[in-house]
């Protein structure tokens, strides 16, 4: 447990020291979302309908941006070797890194989303559902993304390959996440979608650190 906290603290400290990386992903999210009304037109009924999908796709892409940097710096400076050789299980340390990644990329998206939702004329109920869906969904994105980041570590053309591997796996998160908001807007209730999203998160919490750990060991061999 101490090891997890140490890793989280270290990664947050590092994120503070290179703020520009975190802010870039955040502004990317803001800009992509703001571009859609310009391309589609200001008709509020249409915007309200497409808002959940656009916010979620933008969140997927913003998460992808920082993903290739999840393990790469640690790999380059030898920290990853020390993590593998640490006396605590690698799975725990990896979980710590994933949590830190979520705090620096996922959590800001959750907090920003309602502000951007207002641009699309979503009402307060829908904004609340959007926030809850992102709160459950963005950790899922970080967990699945970590597997891809570990698999493409130090590989030729890793960044592009990473999106090819990870984006198809993001489909269920996208469907249930955006679906929750849509269901709420159309009056069906978001409960079903949210609980399925939570079930996926529970599955990923068990499975993803294991797969990531195995992939990291292979990358270091």
């Amino acid at each position: 447990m101490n090891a997890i906290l140490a890793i989280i603290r270290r990664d947050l400290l590092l994120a503070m020291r290179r703020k520009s990386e975190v802010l870039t992903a955040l502004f990317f999210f803001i800009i992509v979302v703001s571009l859609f009304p310009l391309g589609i037109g200001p008709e509020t009924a249409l915007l309200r309908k497409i808002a959940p999908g656009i916010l979620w796709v933008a969140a997927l892409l913003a998460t992808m941006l920082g993903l290739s940097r999840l393990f790469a710096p640690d790999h380059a400076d030898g920290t990853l070797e020390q993590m593998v050789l640490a006396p605590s299980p690698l799975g725990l340390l990896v979980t710590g890194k994933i949590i830190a990644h979520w705090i620096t990329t996922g959590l800001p998206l959750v907090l920003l989303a309602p502000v951007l939702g207002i641009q699309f004329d979503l009402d307060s109920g829908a904004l609340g559902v959007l926030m809850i869906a992102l709160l459950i969904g963005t950790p899922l994105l970080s967990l699945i993304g970590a597997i891809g980041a570990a698999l493409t570590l130090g590989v030729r053309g890793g960044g592009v390959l990473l999106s090819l591997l990870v984006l198809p796996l993001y489909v269920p998160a996208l469907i249930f996440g955006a679906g929750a908001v849509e269901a709420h807007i159309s009056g069906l209730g978001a409960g079903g979608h949210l609980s399925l999203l939570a079930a996926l998160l529970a599955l990923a919490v068990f499975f993803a650190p294991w797969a990531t750990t195995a992939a990291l060991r292979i990358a270091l061999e």
Partner: protein
Amino acid sequence: MLTATGLSCVRGERCLFSGLDLAVGPGEWLHVQGENGAGKTSLLRILASLSPPAEGEIHWKNAPIRTLAEDYHRDMLFLGHHGAVKEELTPFENLTLAAKLDGAPLDETAALKALARFGLRGREDLAVRFLSAGQKRRVLLARLAVRQATLWILDEPFTALDVKAVDMLSGLIEEHVKAGGICILTSHQSMPLPNGRVLKI
């Protein structure tokens, strides 16, 4: 006591070495020598359990390291080509965070003392990126001094060190070995340390 029997290592299609045996006991140190590409680094990474050998088995205190896993990691300290030093963090942060990961938190005075010992006094709070290559390596040496591990596996520890730091490091290794520790290292320089055994691959 670290023993290895019948180790072989394959990289790509090439077999780097095979049938390699070694045994290093407490109070001993081993100098691994060989030409470039002979597999010195590969051997050390295998001994550190970072990569599995193609054949053979490694035992630490009579138990195979495969099964020991974290227990082995606790007794062992590995320094690779890359220093595992974060450029954005200060020497002090690097040292204390590494100690926390090693499961042996360091109090402030001990950390500052270790840094001062390696001539980093006054640079504790400067990001490592502003330090020279030699000073970066000294941050590593400070880690070596505070980490409680019986077995040291050091890959080219003398690289980029000035004469003074080389003396400090050899002193550190000598101290460690005298206290019953084990050290396995590679180096291009002839070692300024007495009583070492040499393994040529």
